[in-house]
């Protein structure tokens, strides 16, 4: 069998074997509950908005309910699999609750099937990345296929950044081949998690004055905006509040230098100070686009914008790196071993057993063990012991991103140096 097929199949098998037994209750629960709403023709954002209003009313604070706050298209990747699941198991709820700080109620045996089915789009995205990467370099494909961090995010956690990753990769590959409409479409799909929106100025800048190419790109991109337009017409206040309001005014933090904010228990202050990284993000993205947008090769220019947005942006969750990992693997100047930092961070932020809830909830004995372990974990959290490594790893990851950014930006010099030495050789001859 072709090595490329072998790696792809191996990546698939590993993921399928792990998928049913683990999950991040909050995130997978959101997809489960949103799939049900979408399948029943409900408004995805109304539920989140109502919960937000309820939280604000109860607390008197400008809080947001952390539910479905993504591009409307995202859920349609999951809905077919959810529909298939209900065709087998029926419409009864099997994952109930689970939004922080609550723990979910799972109904067996179908909870396993629901978890498995909802991870299939993520697994397919992962496998597609492996397949595409293996077309360039089998070793890089192997790296992605068996990287513990990628496997964890996609099939243990159940987070869908692999879907962003495949569409970003396709965006790059199709732009290279000058398939602008397809590229615009793929890029539009990659914005299902809004952090890739920072690339839009870059693409426009690079295609500026190539009017036909830019037009095709924007046409492809605009197709993906149709559901956005629909929600903007049907429920503008709700949609704006949930998507733009939440994403635009999130309190900073994550695997970055800003997670110190977690020990500042003052949401008003936290919101104010979170404006600083947002301003820096805008300035830095603009600077990179204008200074390097055209000077760098396409791959490096995409990576430089994404990296600078990760370095300065207010929120950098553990899973975000998955989205650019395939591109980093293709870039000779990046060090993809950077995944180790967010991987460590996951286990500092969440107790490892949290992801094993589908297994632990099967028996009262394990259920009890969960709470025993959780008492110790919460003590370590409350006393503040965990915050020290969390902060250290956050800064370390920001610095590693900066290091990679500098390597990518200096591609200009490397390319210049190569050209110079070529000229010198020719002259000598």
């Amino acid at each position, binding site marked *: 069998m072709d090595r490329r097929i072998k790696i792809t199949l191996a990546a698939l098998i590993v993921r399928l074997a792990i998928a049913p037994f683990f999950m991040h209750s909050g995130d997978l629960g959101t997809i489960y509950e949103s799939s049900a709403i979408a399948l029943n023709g409900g408004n995805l954002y109304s539920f989140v908005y109502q919960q937000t209003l309820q*939280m604000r*009313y*109860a*607390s*008197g*604070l400008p*809080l947001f309910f952390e539910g479905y706050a993504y591009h409307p298209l995202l859920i349609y990747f999951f809905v077919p699999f959810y529909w298939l699941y209900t065709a087998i198991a029926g419409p009864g709820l099997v994952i109930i609750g689970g939004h*922080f*700080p*609550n723990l979910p109620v799972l109904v067996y045996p179908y909870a396993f099937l629901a978890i498995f089915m909802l991870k299939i789009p993520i697994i397919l995205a992962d496998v597609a990345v492996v397949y595409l990467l293996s077309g360039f370099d089998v070793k890089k494909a192997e790296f992605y296929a068996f990287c513990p961090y990628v496997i964890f995010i996609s099939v243990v956690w159940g987070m869908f950044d692999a879907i962003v990753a495949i569409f970003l990769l396709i965006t790059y590959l199709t732009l290279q081949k000058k398939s602008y409409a397809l590229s615009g479409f793929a890029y539009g799909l990659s914005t299902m998690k809004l952090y890739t929106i920072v690339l839009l100025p870059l693409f426009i800048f690079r295609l500026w004055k190539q009017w036909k190419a830019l037009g095709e790109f924007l046409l492809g991109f605009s197709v993906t905006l149709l559901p956005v337009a629909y929600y903007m017409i049907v429920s503008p206040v709700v949609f704006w509040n949930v998507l733009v309001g939440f994403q635009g005014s999130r309190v900073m933090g994550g695997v970055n*230098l*800003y997670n*110190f*904010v977690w*020990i*500042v*228990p*003052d*949401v*008003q*202050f*936290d919101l104010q*100070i979170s404006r600083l990284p947002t301003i820096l993000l805008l300035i830095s993205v603009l600077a990179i686009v204008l200074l390097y947008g055209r000077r760098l090769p396409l791959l490096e220019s995409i990576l430089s914008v994404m990296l600078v947005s990760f*370095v300065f942006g207010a929120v950098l969750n553990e899973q975000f790196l998955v989205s650019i990992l395939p591109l980093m693997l293709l870039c*000779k*100047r990046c*060090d993809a071993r950077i995944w180790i930092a967010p991987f460590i961070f996951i286990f500092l932020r969440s107790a490892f057993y949290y992801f094993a809830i589908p297994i632990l909830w099967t028996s009262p004995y394990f259920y009890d063990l969960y709470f025993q372990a959780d008492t110790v974990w919460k003590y370590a959290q*409350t*006393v*503040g*012991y965990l*915050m*020290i490594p969390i*902060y*250290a790893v956050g*800064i*370390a990851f*920001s*610095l590693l991103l*900066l*290091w990679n950014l*500098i390597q990518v*930006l*200096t591609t*200009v*010099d*490397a390319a*210049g*140096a190569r050209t110079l030495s070529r000229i010198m050789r020719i002259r000598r001859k």
Partner: protein
Amino acid sequence: MQWSRDSRLRMKILTIFFIVYVVLLSFVPLIHQVYVAQSSWLGYGTGAYAYQSPSYFVLFNDPYDGSSKPNIHVNPSMAPNERISILEFSDWTSYVDGYNLFNDFNVTIRTSSDGKTLDATYTRPQLTLHKLIELTSDAVQVKMIANKEVNVHVELWKWIMTSVNTITTTSKPTMIPITTSINFTFNDQSLNATGLGEITLSRTPTQIEIWPFENGFNRVTVDFINSEMTFTVSGSITQPGQVSWSYADLPYVLPVIAIVVVTSYLLLAKRHGQENKDHPSRSHR
């Protein structure tokens, strides 16, 4: 790899800017703790509130949790960053006219415009109860005001009280003589600290009961029939126990961590740069 001078300078500026940025931001929690967080109710998390005065730290939990409503901590004078819980009001186990404060009421939490008073409003049909929490320099006041006369059962927890109004041991829950002053000595299990606490009631209760646990008591229950009652809670630590590390110390530690991490980064980057100079081929994987 040959970097142009311009580019090298630009990257150096970027690195220096970022490192200064990291280190400066690491002081934010400390600045907040010293200049912003003092003597005002601040909301955080999923709707919890906290108040730090020079001698007390009071936590009022979010609407999704019935514990710590409020939880009153004292900061020992010899270790001002320590927070030792002296008394916790529990909504899980408190009742008004037979209705559980956590399960049977809708709760909204607001602060006064000056940030000095926290008002938790409990509502259900024909019944409204305000729990107003204010701090003075030497005590914490928890005022309960209802829109009518109500029959209230309040549970006050402390793990563990070694004596309550001079009673040191009982084998079963015991009613103590009715009084408006409850004094207790305590042992804080987590920090092994010992101290004194006092609860002064503004109205005469109908019943006070103490509940034995291990070698002391873990709660005092107060029953009263009235439309208003103020619990004035004060306390002090007589022996601080194992004072070594506190959550409130974190703001002092973060700048140190930031400096250590950025210094390590600079050293590693310098070594990497040196290796690349010596072996240029290594710079490309």
